[in-house]
């Protein structure tokens, strides 16, 4: 039998299913009113078959790649054959299929003539799910019990009847019940849209043909994924990178280690060798490690591969239990986003050896989380949460992007004016920093600085940054980027350097400065065309001193001194020798006690 029995019917079906997943996503953006969902797009929608295999995923957050099958499997294990038409299942417990507590999964089974044909699935990051810190996002919780309400697989509706106990529990345990309920309603609306449209397809195609087409769609993605993987070279590549610390055991670096094994049309990402799980809330569920692995691999595969079970089949992810890549009870995980971002850097490091022409140098390390909370002048509580990042490592063909979302999370930044209108915070600065990106034939994207002035009388300030101790690596001769930095009251007599992760009390007028890390460069900076260096100098992204020091280009008054440049480059070249390859880290890597 040919892989696709009816090519026209197949393409129409594929289109229709992807359209359903996208329409679910549009429904959520239309009906939610939380900024996390609308602006940060911290949600995903999907469509699974009756056995729980992923068939199509809506285009939203890479960090959710592959999380749905794990969650749905957990719900199926719990309820199995007791699932009936009109049920809606939900969960958020990372120890029962979830990812971290703010992400609530909602599944709706879809029946046709008594047969369970499919599940409509949604995940949304909710603004608050209770716990010790508003927003349920704190990095310094040390066990899951501090992080908020844990929902094991639960029927939110049974045969169409709402589970009032569950709704009451939710309303009682979260700080913003109106928002949480509205967003759950958005999830339900998306599932209803999916059900209606899928049943139209089944009516049209018949149940048997629909099941055949879903199988074919999975196989089709698997073929595309395997064909793309086959084009990559075979072999084994390992890479390690370090997280500064977990925000609890300050100054203790955390190791990420990955090995990619590629053979024929299969690829494996093995995180064995990564740190044992940590006390701070940056541990991953295995599904989140899968998501980071899938996303990194996806970046080096050619072609437009529909995201479904077939894509995952071609990729094997390994992570030993009890590590930061696969936590055990009572590990905390609310801020595991940080680990996901850093896993992308780590995985891309290994993939850069496999596919040197496709992979960028290390980015700024992913987003920094800044929370400022307290009481405003009217004694009303306020919570301001900002997640910010935006500089890519240099690529083998071009400079890194600057002022652009991370590849792992397509978040938008909040408007400065909206922030100031709504919170007792002023943003004093939001602009690029010169001389911080890794130099190279192609340079890293310029990182930016942000300054926050507190206007409330007092507030609690929590920062979750990284890459303050381990610089983003450069590739194939490109330089490492500059460290990230936090400081209080910059440019004053009271200026004070701060840890990468900390919580402290601040007063009205205090200013927090956060400088993103500079991403890595790619290729030998001594080979960067002097006119490109001049462009950066004119744009004040590189200083004249930086041009000499990092690129060996002598620029005076916006003009290149060609003779002096040649002489300086020759001198730097002789002093340095060949450009380091494949990595330039810029910081010593901690020695391993067991030499693993």
């Amino acid at each position, binding site marked *: 039998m040919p892989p*696709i029995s009816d090519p026209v019917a197949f*393409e129409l079906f594929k289109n229709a299913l992807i*359209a359903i997943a996208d329409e679910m996503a549009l429904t959520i953006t239309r009906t939610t009113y939380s900024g996390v969902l609308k602006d940060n797009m911290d949600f995903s929608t999907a469509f699974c078959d009756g056995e729980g295999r992923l068939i199509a995923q809506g285009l939203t957050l890479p960090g959710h790649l592959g999380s749905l099958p794990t969650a749905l499997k957990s719900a199926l294990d719990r309820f199995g054959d007791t699932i009936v038409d009109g049920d809606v299942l939900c969960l958020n417990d990372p120890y029962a299929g979830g990812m971290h507590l703010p992400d609530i999964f909602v599944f709706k089974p879809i029946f046709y003539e008594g047969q369970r044909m499919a599940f409509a699935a949604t995940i949304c990051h909710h603004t608050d799910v209770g716990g010790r810190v508003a927003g349920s996002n704190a990095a310094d919780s040390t066990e899951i019990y501090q992080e908020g309400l844990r929902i094991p697989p639960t029927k939110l509706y049974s045969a169409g009847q709402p589970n009032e106990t569950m709704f009451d529990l939710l309303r009682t345990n979260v700080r913003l019940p109106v928002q949480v309920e509205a967003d759950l*309603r958005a999830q339900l609306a998306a599932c209803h849209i999916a059900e209606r449209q899928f049943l139209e397809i089944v009516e049209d195609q018949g149940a048997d043909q629909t099941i055949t087409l879903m199988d074919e769609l999975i196989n089709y993605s698997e*073929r595309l994924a395997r064909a793309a993987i086959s084009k990559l070279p075979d072999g084994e590549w390992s890479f390690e990178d370090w997280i500064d610390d977990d925000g609890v055991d300050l100054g203790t670096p955390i190791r990420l280690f990955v090995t990619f094994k590629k053979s024929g049309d299969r690829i494996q990402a093995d995180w064995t060798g990564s740190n044992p799980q940590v006390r701070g809330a940056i541990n991953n569920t295995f599904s989140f490690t899968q998501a980071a692995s899938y996303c990194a691999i996806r970046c080096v595969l050619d072609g437009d591969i529909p995201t479904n079970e077939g894509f995952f089949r071609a990729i094997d992810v390994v992570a030993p239990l009890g590590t930061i890549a696969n936590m055990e009870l009572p590990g905390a995980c609310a801020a595991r986003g940080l680990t996901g971002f850093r896993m992308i850097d780590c995985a891309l490091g290994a993939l850069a050896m496999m596919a040197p022409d496709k992979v960028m140098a290390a980015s700024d390390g992913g987003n920094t989380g800044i929370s400022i909370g307290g009481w405003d002048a009217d004694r009303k509580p306020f919570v301001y949460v900002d997640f910010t990042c935006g500089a890519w490592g240099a690529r083998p063909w071009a400079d890194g992007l600057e002022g652009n979302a991370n590849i792992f999370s*397509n978040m938008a930044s909040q408007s400065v004016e909206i922030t100031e209108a709504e919170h007792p915070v002023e943003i004093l600065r939001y602009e*690029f920093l010169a001389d911080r990106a890794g130099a190279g034939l192609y340079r890293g994207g310029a990182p930016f600085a942000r300054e926050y002035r507190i206007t409330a009388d007092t507030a609690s300030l929590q920062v979750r940054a990284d890459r303050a101790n381990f610089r983003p690596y450069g590739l194939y001769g490109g330089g490492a980027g500059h460290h990230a930095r936090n400081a209080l009251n910059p440019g004053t007599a009271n200026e004070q350097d701060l840890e990468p992760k900390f919580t402290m009390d601040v007063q009205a007028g205090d200013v927090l400065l956060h400088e993103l890390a500079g991403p890595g460069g790619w290729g030998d900076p001594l080979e960067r065309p002097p006119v490109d260096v001049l462009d950066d100098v004119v744009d*004040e*992204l590189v200083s004249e001193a930086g041009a000499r020091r990092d690129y060996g280009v002598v620029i005076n008054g916006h003009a290149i001194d060609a003779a002096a440049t040649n002489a300086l480059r020759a001198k730097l070249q002789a002093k340095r020798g060949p450009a380091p390859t494949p990595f330039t880290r810029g910081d010593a890597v901690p020695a391993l006690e067991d030499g693993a």
Partner: protein
Amino acid sequence: MSGEWRIGVDIGGTFTDIVLLGPEGRLSVRKVSSSVDDYARAIVEGLAVALDEAGLTAADVADIRHGATVASNAILERKGARVGLIGTVGFRDVLEIRTLRMPRLYDLAWEKPKPLVPRRLRVTVPERIDANGAIVTPLDMEAAAVAIDALVAKGVDAIAVALINAYANPAHEQALKALLAERAPGVASCISTDVLPEIREYERTSTTVVNCYVLPVVGAYLKSLQAGLSAAKVDAPLSLMQSSGGLTPADAAARLPVHIIESGPAGGVVGAQALAEPLGESSIVSFDMGGTTAKAALVIDGRAERAEELQVGGEAIQASRLLTGQGYSVKTRAIDLAEVGAGGGSIVWIDAGGAMQIGPESAGASPGPVAYGMGGDRPTVTDANLILGYLNPAGLAGGDRPLDLEAARAVFQAKVADPLGLSLEDAAFGARRIAVANMMRTIRAVTVERGRDPRSAALFAFGGNGPLFGWDMAMALGMNRVIAPPAPGLFSAFGLIYAEVEHHYGRTLRRVLANADASEIEAAWAALETEAIDQLVAEGFSGPTQSVKRTASLRYKGQTHELEVDWTGPISAGKLDALAEAFGEEHARVYGHRAGAAEPVELITLRVSGRGLGDRPPLARASDRSTGTHGARQAYFGPKLGWLETPVLSRKDLVSSRKGPFIVEEYDATCLAPPGVSGEINDATGAIVLR
């Protein structure tokens, strides 16, 4: 205004379309090649020819309405002004950092569009205003003078000013405006609070910069066009179509060209809206399909749905409405158009997984489809239409361009049918169905995003390929009526004739309603109204021909997005509750629920729209133009029905209802009615109605 003929002029990259509508609905159309070096020339010359053909003179022209692509082309081709930008110290990179959001996932090769003002031309000045409009740091006038002089020394053509929190207090921008007039009188400039006095610094900055970027280009173009028209003794008023679907006089467009960027496609939607009404269709999906793209918009209850923001100058094709950032943000009222890269030139190909794909790559106008015989060797949607017998091998446009059926068959057989194991006709038929599915996905997205069910609406199909795909599109969307207007290929020009003058004004005034000062709100609203009325009066609209409407954007405090509600009459302290209630009702309509009365409602932006109501133009009479290619040919309608003898008609053959299959061939388009569909022409509008 002595003349009685209204003129619509729409410019495309290849053709300039001119439509003349006279007394009793007399209609005359003319398609001429665009003069790419100076678009105005083709208009002036084409108009002279068109007038001559219709036996008219310049004195017969009542007014000219123009859909211009000059602004969008300047952005697409990066041929706008050299702009300098002055911002607040600490915020040099607002324009380049944007919202961070990108339109693609997993794509390490993604490149951001380069900012329209490079960093070297972005300067900042010490000043600071807080969110409540209080001056925290006074503007440093000396530093400002230095900044302006530096930009002038760098040879900028225009200077934009956008300061943080200026929406709350424009004093510093006003001071800079005065300083610019003094120190750089020869340089065009605009301040953000004159362009868009609304909250959100990136959108306001970007909109202001785009306005500056196209200001000199649009100004020069309109000057040249008006000079040409006046040399040709055409002294009728010239107005421009805005992205919103409303007209604006040429001098206003020259001042705020940011409003005419999506001028081109708007005309078709407005025309569709106008023609659907006498057909008793108040809700339609307009569907405009040409050679490379298809565009759709939603008209609900006689009103086109509007978007609040456009992305301009990026990749023409938006992959998904979920992802943004492909172009430059422009916050102006615009008809909400969904665009998809599917047209007659879209390439049909087989992917690595063995599935048939259509586009997004297009053979374009050159080399074009295989059948054009201009070197195209990849099968396209047009080739499929030809193979299926839907298109006349003798060619369109009265046989200007014959089509090579045998070449199309051979290539389609080898590159599509054989690899998939399908018969030639089933492969071609399948390609069409997939093209329809691709387009449907994009159109559905607009309707879903709006929470609208398109099934009760009619599909209004135009553009060179619109009526050829209209019925299949309607079926795919669950709709059961298709309207194909007269002159479908020139319909965007035709639609301009039915547009009305329209202007939008807004100002952010952030107040929680429960403790707001109603007199302050009333004063701000009234000021916007005065602005609207002054503009309308200047254009000759007064009394009953003025329609001025208030709306307000509100949200529950803590929400990140607003909803807009209508408001009638003055507002006073006693009426604030009613405004909150109107918002609550709208919230319930959009989201399906509303918060309790205790939840504070926050006003964000006050808006006023002003419309000038002109005489309604007559409807066009049925076109008399016929290609004269009557007869019949074999056409294929899928595996079940197979090849059927299909009559080929002209529009006027449909005076009484007729059952499909049939094909209507015209000067500029082909309309297909498959078996089982009945079609007839509507006398009043000249439109073909399929049902």
